């Protein structure tokens, strides 16, 4: 294909389309119409994403996946968007997640539905922008742009304590990203000149910035804190359970399914390659924090009585492993992270859908008040059990592949960390099976007696998720092939 004939590229389509669709959604007053519009828009985005996967080979279709316009020419920042393997995978995850979320929560009615769906689509645009930005200033823009709509979503449509909880979330992430901004500026002043400016914000300029080891050592932490808050890694996680609990469930799905991947993504794209020496130097600290966080979150998850907080803590445990695996500097660990980013997104969204269904029907999220749902809703229970098993990372499920590879990477790095981290798998089995047993098995009580089997829509979305779980459980190769290039880039930076 002649590059001159291309007038729009995939990253542009993926970013601008949800943005425009979101703005349009604000204008549609009727709730039904705006719901259908949001669903159609997200399906079109999914179509674009699938098309981009067909043309994902950057050696052949580079011009379809990369684009750059002048922006702040004399400062050295350009509107550069691009899709590499990891970008393709995460934009695909984002594109898959939104239609699923919209279908799964289609029964839920929102006040001011136009604003709700508009903000959801804007969040999607922000996320797409983060995953496609190849210029660090653009990345920062989208990084914030994804949070602002999420803040409004949680504070307006959330639970009782929503205002405080989401405000905590906002201040945490805002403070983190401002620290990152200083880091960005500092690295910027050490980059090479462009034809128009003394320094540059381009990704390649950042990768080749001339920072001394000493400088790397402290600027590393400015970036790391921002990303650690987003993931979240212990001890920066305290906003998460509150926010997940108080946010409307469909927003929680976005937050936990995709937005936490922003943190992992950012570590892989912007932290490790820019500060490779600092990353090697501080690998023990970061992995140590991650492992502590895994065990800590798992132990707390066992004690949780609220289903939403339960899922939140179990998510912290899983994210911790991913963060640790990045810093093992091994190919197998990084590949595991790539697979797990996608799998975790799928699994946790499934988990939230089930929680949402249970809450909507019974009106409670207390594990102690529920029980015996299996008798009343066997299909729901089957789906839940599959998703729960994926949460424990049992073989045949997608999470097993990723976690196995990550543990292998960690094992190569240090056996003690591995041994401790492995405890979290046992703990995961304890808390997940405990939850399944208490909520779905046993005797039905007054609360759960009225529960009904799920509708066709819901069966459909859960079915799709379960297909993903098994598909990538037995055949993860496509994900590995897709993200090969990113893994190679990171590994060469470590050397």
């Amino acid at each position, binding site marked *: 294909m002649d590059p001159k004939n291309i007038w729009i590229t995939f990253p542009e389509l993926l970013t601008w389309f949800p943005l425009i669709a979101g703005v349009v959604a604000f204008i549609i007053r009727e709730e039904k119409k705006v719901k259908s519009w949001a669903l159609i828009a997200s399906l079109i985005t999914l179509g674009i994403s699938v098309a981009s996967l067909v043309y994902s080979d950057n050696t052949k279709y580079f011009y379809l996946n990369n684009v750059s316009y002048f922006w*702040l*020419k*004399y*400062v050295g920042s350009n509107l550069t968007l691009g899709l590499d393997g990891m970008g393709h995978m995460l934009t695909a995850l984002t594109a898959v997640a939104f239609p699923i979320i919209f279908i799964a929560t289609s029964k839920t009615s929102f006040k001011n539905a136009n604003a709700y769906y508009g903000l959801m689509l804007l969040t999607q645009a922000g996320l797409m922008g983060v995953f496609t930005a190849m210029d660090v200033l653009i990345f*920062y*823009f989208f990084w*914030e*742009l994804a949070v*602002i709509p999420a803040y*409004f979503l949680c*504070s*307006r449509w959330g639970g009782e304590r*929503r*205002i405080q909880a989401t*405000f905590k979330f*906002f*201040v945490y992430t*805002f*403070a983190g990203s*401002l*620290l990152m*901004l*200083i880091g960005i*500026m*500092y690295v*910027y*002043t050490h980059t090479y000149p462009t034809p128009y400016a003394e320094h540059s914000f381009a990704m390649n300029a950042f990768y080749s910035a001339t920072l001394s080891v000493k400088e790397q050592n402290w600027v590393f932490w400015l970036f790391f804190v921002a990303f650690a808050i987003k993931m979240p890694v212990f001890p920066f996680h305290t906003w998460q359970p509150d926010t997940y609990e108080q946010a409307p469930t469909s927003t929680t799905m976005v937050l936990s399914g995709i937005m936490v991947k922003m943190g992992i993504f950012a570590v892989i794209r912007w932290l490790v390659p820019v500060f490779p020496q600092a990353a090697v130097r501080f690998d023990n600290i970061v992995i140590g924090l991650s492992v502590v966080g895994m065990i800590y979150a798992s132990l707390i998850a066992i004690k949780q009585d609220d289903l939403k907080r339960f899922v939140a803590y179990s998510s912290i445990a899983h994210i911790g492993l991913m963060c640790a695996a990045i810093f093992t500097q091994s190919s197998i660990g990084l590949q595991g992270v790539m697979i797990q980013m996608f799998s975790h997104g799928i699994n946790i969204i499934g988990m939230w859908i089930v929680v949402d269904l249970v809450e909507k029907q019974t009106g409670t999220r207390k594990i102690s008040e529920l029980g015996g749902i299996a008798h009343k809703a066997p299909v729901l229970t089957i789906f839940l059990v599959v998703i729960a098993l994926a949460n424990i990372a049992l073989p045949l499920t997608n999470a097993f592949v990723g976690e196995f590879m990550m543990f292998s990477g960690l094992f190569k790095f240090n056996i003690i960390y591995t041994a401790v981290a492995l405890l979290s798998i046992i703990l995961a089995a304890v808390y997940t099976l405990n939850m399944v047993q208490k909520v779905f098995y046993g005797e039905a009580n007054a609360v759960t007696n009225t529960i009904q089997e799920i509708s066709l829509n819901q069966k459909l979305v859960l079915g799709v998720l379960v297909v993903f779980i098994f598909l990538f459980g037995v055949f993860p190769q496509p994900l590995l092939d897709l993200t090969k290039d990113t893994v190679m880039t990171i590994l060469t930076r470590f050397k």
Partner: protein
Amino acid sequence: MNAIILTAAWGVLMMLCGAFIKSKSAPKYLAIAGLLLVLISNCLELGTGASFFSIDVKDMIRVNSFNLTFINIALGCTLLYFLLNGRDIEKVGEHVSEYFALLFFVLCGVALISTFNTLLMLFIGIEIVSIPLYVLTGSDKRNLKSNEAALKYFLMGSFSTGIMLLGIAFLYGGSETGSFYISNIISGNDPMPPMIAVGLVLLLISMSFKVSAAPFHFWTPDVYDGAPTVFTSFMATIVKAAAFFAFVRLFENAFGSMHAQWQKLIVILIAATLLIGNLTAVFQQSVKRMLAYSSIAQAGFMLFSLFALNGMAKEGLVLYTAAYSLASIGIFAILVKMNDYTIDGFNGLAKQQPVLALTATIFLLSLTGIPLTAGFQSKFYMLLAAVENGQHIWLVILAVLCAAISAYYYFRVIQAMYFKDSTSSAESVNSSDISLSFKLLLVITAVLIIVLGMFPNFITDWLYF
């Protein structure tokens, strides 16, 4: 040159108009017409370099694209301010045309202090700015608070002017050539003579007073709170921006070669201003007072231009003044319409007045410094300039932590508007007060803020025209 003479002349005209025209709304239209005239003539001067008046000023005033751009911003913001607040100015008291005349005199002073080339011109400019402001602060004659504020402002202001004069005297005596020209004060790179050092510190103190940098900020909250809200808006935006411009112009041209020696003082000023402004703003219940403290906090950010004193910092300062003025004029214009100035007074505004709430949100986001707004770009330029300077990175870190704190108090208003319900049955604003054109102007301001946030080069390119 155009701006200085035309504003002064139009001010006189406005005064006379008060004697001959009885209609209450006429002065407003006359003022807007005059301001348009000044703005166009200033744009012509920036575009073609030609002035209507050719007066030999003995180089006491120096005009270049940099300060012309700034005057343009000041005039443009004032135009917006007149359009948004014209009706509210009429409501303050009986002497409408005099208020407008005084505002024009302030603008004349603003033009002077952005183009001065000698210390005398600076002094005259500062006085021309201050004296009308003392009057405007006390213009709500029957209000005790307004009177108190005016007296306080006058006493503190004349005190600081006295300090400035003393400083100027020291500099005059200390300079080798005995000259008021700012470029002649320091000759060569020798260590700073003690007389010059004393003069510098005195000027620093008096200018810090004018821009309300801590610890010389104590007048600000009382004066801003006591003055009629429409005039607070003018003081906190255009006047403050101009004072900053003069501050940087003075210290860059007069003491730029000794930057390293006084940079430490600026560091202390910045740290104190950021901390005091932000931490105190957190505890305010009245939005007006909160905005007064926030203006102190924003001054802390603007001081970074003095800290860094490089090209980026100057661009950043101009951008900052534009971004900050636009957002503050917008939020003050909404505040004037509110029946209750406390944060709770904003409860449920989004339901009653969605346009006001949405634009207020954009203004507050811009003041916080969220990307895609002009406020982000200006903070970004400032901090980038400071990082490029290379020293005292901890100060930059302190600044961003303070920006995170500022999110707390700005977002409280957003929370009140969107997430809380109104407690009283009365309306938060008189809907009869809100005309369609007012809403339209607010939307235009908000769009301007977002456009500047995406393309800051619309302003910065003019600096090198």
